[in-house]
């Protein structure tokens, strides 16, 4: 039961099947090692989601660091350094077949969100968690979660609008 929740959250955030598997394994290793320190202030589910989200964010930060160093290398090597950020190449394995093509644009746009907005959107839209649970997982107020979600949706609409315009050209 938890393994699907963890894996689904991870794959929504990192958009890589192999990395999501690693994060899932690491999450359960951490849960196993830290279970005695679980203080039951939150539910077990919230605690496991929190560990998963933190591991995903660690991975995303490491990936961004590598990307920045890559850009630096390209600067010295004279490459253009342009990273295509609206190229839809990730297909979530749980999406219905007839919607897979369209969903790729959504995930490409999600990839461009700041980490906190990405987290909130994935937990709300992909995991379909209530805002109260998301607030507990992220140690935020419900209002803060609402605000982040609104901003995430606005940014996604803007990004998708640009993708639509580029497709029409």
């Amino acid at each position, binding site marked *: 039961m938890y*393994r*699907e929740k963890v894996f689904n959250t991870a794959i929504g955030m990192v958009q890589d099947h192999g990395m999501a598997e690693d994060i*899932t394994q690491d999450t359960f290793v951490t849960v196993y090692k830290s279970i005695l320190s679980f203080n039951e202030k939150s539910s077990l589910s919230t605690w496991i989601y929190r560990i998963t989200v933190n591991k995903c964010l660690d991975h995303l930060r490491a990936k961004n660091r590598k990307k920045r160093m890559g850009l630096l290398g390209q600067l010295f090597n004279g490459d253009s350094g342009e990273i295509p950020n609206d190229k839809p190449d990730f297909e979530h394995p749980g999406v219905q077949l007839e919607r897979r093509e*369209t969903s790729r644009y959504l995930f490409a746009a999600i990839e461009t969100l700041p980490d906190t907005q990405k987290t909130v959107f994935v937990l709300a839209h992909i995991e379909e968690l209530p805002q109260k649970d998301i607030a507990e997982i992220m140690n935020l107020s419900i209002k803060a979660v609402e605000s982040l979600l609104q901003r995430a949706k606005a940014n996604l609409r803007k990004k998708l609008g640009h993708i639509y315009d580029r497709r029409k050209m």
Partner: protein
Amino acid sequence: MKNNINKEKWIDEVFNSTQGLKRAQPGADLYEKIAAKLSHPQPVSLPFPVKRWIAAAVLLLAVNMGSVIYFNGQEKKTVPVNTGNPLASEIQTETTYNY
């Protein structure tokens, strides 16, 4: 105008593309892999920036050591100053320059 309507319609379609999403399944060997990680913990690797900082610190130390050795080993250049004193050649009032 029509383009904007079509654009908004397409965006809505993209947003709704995850409706009816089924939970993705991890590999069947997940538990074996977790058990393996628990039995054989991975060595901790330093995060990327720490390695760079260590390398920078070593380089800085090497440059500083090199400077200390260089300046200590410099031959001292002296310029005799004529003071009119008949014993000047004996006293050797010198201004020392280090180049």
